[in-house]
């Protein structure tokens, strides 16, 4: 066990600095603002610091460590060239307020990414400012809100979300000040058009939905849904977290959506970094574009005087949307993430469709393989598909309810059993509509061998004696963590021994 706050080796600092610039009269902090008690930070030499964080890293699981079938999270391989590019000169030390002629490279990459996302989503204008999916949702909903205010339809105070929606959907809409109308899904996990029709009315500002939906099913009725909402005068919002399933095959635009967010940290391989950073651009149809946060990257043919500084024949510049809602992040969003995703995009280019095809191939194959191996092992009665379907999209759900009933083995037990076998567990207990749910998303970057082996292990876990499974995991750095204890005995920082 390496504990940061037990380190007190270096008498001074683990990072020595150059001598400061000298002044004529030394600068002074006002007397009442002088800090007398320094932060009780630890003192580590560089060797100790390196070893501590290396030790920590070894207690953490990432895609590089093993298969990470976390549903809804699109844990695909992060190509290493992206990291190289993010560390090239010309990004780390770039300030967003530098004049445009200092930023032609950055602006051109922004422009290219806006354009690419517009093409892929079938939208008219993209902004890269939102820094995560949830912020994208919030931003788009705010644009819709201002759009309606602008049109004098301020009475549209409701946002419809299916009960299987990701928590950020209702939370983002609520943060904008909307009332949430939740509609139940059908038995088979699909959207209930009747329920939608019943609630869509002149108070409806928008419906938020993801397609393929949270169960990994493509909502074939999506155009009908769009029509219902549009007929009621509302806007259709596409939660792009599942974009990995459909890129190049269909698009939110074709399905009738007005706005969409992208999770670049899912579809475009920005590494998740243990929880962030992400990037959550949004795309909108033309009627919503004037409300987007600014500035946007724009371009025009370069004048002859500009050609020397131009990166191609164009001059890139910032542009402010006419009725912009203003800003959702103080600068231009997560430029560093955008650049990584640009490199990712460039690798595929017009071939992005292959990415989605393989994501869907792998999901369906894994679903197939799990059933196959379970049958072989005689444990196929212990789970059922979370939804009936011939083909899933990029992910699928299983219900462990039968195991629960037959053996007292829960989805959580299975998850912990998988940890013992060197896998990250699938998402569990989401969506709530599937009892004892496991949500599995392999992504396109896993080999058939990995999928086959995982399926075997999955079946083996189900063969494990229930008692033993309740004890799992036993091979991980710690065993099951007591979350109730954590909440009851809140210890949110190092408990210093007070002098």
């Amino acid at each position, binding site marked *: 066990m390496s504990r940061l706050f037990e380190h007190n080796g270096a008498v001074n*600092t683990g990072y020595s*600095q150059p001598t400061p*610039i000298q002044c*004529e009269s030394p*600068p002074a*902090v006002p007397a*009442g*603002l002088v800090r007398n008690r*320094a932060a009780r*930070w630890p003192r580590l030499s560089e060797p100790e*610091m390196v070893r*501590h*964080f290396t030790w*920590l890293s070894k*207690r*953490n699981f*990432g*895609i590089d*460590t093993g298969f990470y079938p976390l549903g809804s999270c699109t844990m695909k*391989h*992060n190509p290493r060239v992206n990291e190289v590019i993010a560390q*090239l000169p*010309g990004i780390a*030390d*770039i300030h967003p*307020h530098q004049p445009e002629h200092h930023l*032609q490279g*950055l602006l051109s990459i922004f422009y290219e990414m806006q354009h690419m996302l517009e093409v*892929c989503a079938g939208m008219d204008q993209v902004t890269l400012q939102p820094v995560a999916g*949830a912020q994208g949702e919030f931003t788009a909903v705010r644009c819709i809100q201002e759009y309606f205010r602008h049109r004098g339809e301020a009475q549209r105070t409701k946002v419809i979300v299916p009960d299987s929606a990701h*928590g950020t959907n209702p939370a983002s809409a*609520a943060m*904008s000040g*909307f009332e949430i109308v939740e509609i139940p899904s059908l038995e088979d996990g699909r959207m209930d058009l009747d329920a939608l029709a019943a609630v869509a009315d002149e108070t409806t500002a928008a419906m938020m939905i993801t397609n393929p939906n949270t169960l990994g099913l493509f909502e074939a009725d999506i155009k009908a849904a769009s029509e219902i909402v549009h007929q009621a005068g509302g806007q259709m919002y596409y939660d792009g977290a599942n974009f990995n399933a459909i890129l190049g095959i*269909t698009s939110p635009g*074709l*399905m009738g959506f007005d706005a969409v967010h992208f999770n670049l940290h899912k579809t475009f391989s920005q590494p*998740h*970094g*243990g929880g*962030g950073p992400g990037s959550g651009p949004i795309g909108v149809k033309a009627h919503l574009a004037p409300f987007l946060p600014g500035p946007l990257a724009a371009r025009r043919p370069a004048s002859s005087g500009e050609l020397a*500084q131009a990166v191609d024949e164009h001059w890139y510049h910032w542009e402010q949307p006419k009725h912009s*809602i203003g*800003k959702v992040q*103080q*600068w231009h969003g997560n430029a560093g*993430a955008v650049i990584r995703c*640009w490199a990712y995009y*460039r690798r595929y*280019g017009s*071939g992005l*469709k292959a990415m989605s095809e393989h994501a869907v191939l792998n999901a369906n194959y894994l679903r197939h393989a799990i059933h196959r191996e379970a049958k072989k092992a005689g444990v196929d009665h212990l789970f059922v598909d979370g939804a009936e379907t011939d*083909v899933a999209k990029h992910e699928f759900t299983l219900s462990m309810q039968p195991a629960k009933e037959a053996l007292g083995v829960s989805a959580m037990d299975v998850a912990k059993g998988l940890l013992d076998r060197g896998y990250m567990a699938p998402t569990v207990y989401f969506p709530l509509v599937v009892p004892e749910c496991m949500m599995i998303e392999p992504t396109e970057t896993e080999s058939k061998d990995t999928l086959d082996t995982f399926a075997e292990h999955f079946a083996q876990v189900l063969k494990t004696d229930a008692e033993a499974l309740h004890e799992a*995991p036993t091979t*991980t750095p*710690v065993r099951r*963590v007591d*979350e109730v204890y954590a909440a009851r005995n809140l210890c*949110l920082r*190092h408990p210093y021994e007070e002098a």
Partner: protein
Amino acid sequence: MNDVVDQLPNRGREAEMLLEMGLDSMEDLFSDIPEDVRFNGDLPLPGPQSEEEIISDARRLLGANIDMGSRPSFLGAGLYRNYVPAAVFQLVTRGEFLTAYTPYQPEVSQGMLQAMWEFQTLISELVGLPIANLSLYDGSTAAAEALTCAVRVHNRKASQPNTVYVSALTPPDKLSVMHNYCQGAEIEIRTLAHNADGTLDLEALNEAAGSCGVYLEQPNPLGVLDEGLTTVKSIIGDHTALIVGVQPVSLGVVEAPGHYGADIVVGEGQPLGSPVTGGGPLYGIFACSKPYLRLMPGRIVGRSIDVDGKEAYCLTLSTREQHIRRHRATSNICTNETLIALMGAMHMALLGPDGLRDLANRNMMACQRAKEVLSATPGVRLVHDAPHFNEFVIEVQGSAAQCLAYLDSNGIIGGLDMSRWYEEATSQILITTTDQTTLADIESLSAQLALWSTHMEVLA
């Protein structure tokens, strides 16, 4: 090259896999997608590129950007050019950190969980408050979320419900974020006036008492270290949250706001651990006192035990969050800035208390020297006679915009045109120095400003 086989391990095995599933073609996998929403043909985008080609294009494009490090630069205004020690990058890019998701399975995520718990402690100690979350998106959203958090906590007892006060100096981009975040909850944002010397008008502050919260910055957006802030809490009282925005490095020498009454401390974490990176990813610091805990935004890690009683860490208090409480969550935040916060933790761990003090001092010294040199530069006036951290406002001859363009044409990134923030301040520039500013940088700036003044005099 046209086929992205290197990233798709099952390229070439499609038939085999389909066959096993009883499918004929890849098309079959998409049989559920109606024809009328199908794309026809290829995406109208350029073809794929190899890694080598991408790198070479990236070099060309990013090489066209002008790096602050390549010339004297005095642009800051919320983001600060710094040096992040080598160990930080090399450790943070370890795959176990880089390629992990949010630590939902604590048993295999102890590394990041413990690191974030350590981050919480480091921030807590830094700002002088007992609780810190493990990052919000950036300084502006942290400030905005602090306002809505203050309203959630104090609205019931507030004599001015749904009302918060923020410094009139708040940069408009940050203020805009605040407006966006506050409007949903119908929170009114009023502004607090400042004195001519750049300090807060403590008289005017009285009107904020009874509101839900007051947002001020230390150093303030003009770079001024405002001693008056230490009396704010006594003026606004217990039922109004004092929210202080900080430049975290300053806290190596400047008192922690938690020690002078702040209830919430927020700030842009960037100067600790992260380069400026074109404005993102950054990380928003959010720390608070106990009463705010259950209504605060963002993730928190708690120390716990495992079934064997062994020390273990996990996410806790998640009932505040969107994945549990959905539309009644304290915030919609899900993905945050964990990795950048981790860089912050690494930088802080390396610095230690003495290193932080040294770093703060270097910033103070550079700023002071710049003030000394520029105050002696003909045609340049220091606008606020006050102690500063990182930055200060000067007045130049003629238009700030033109002066900055002149400096730019002489290879100097001259600072922020203050009229970008405050319309009337057309001949003012915010000059930012950091630990990375050299004496030579300052002297070039002074020399060019002197030339500019001469130039303007000739014109006059």
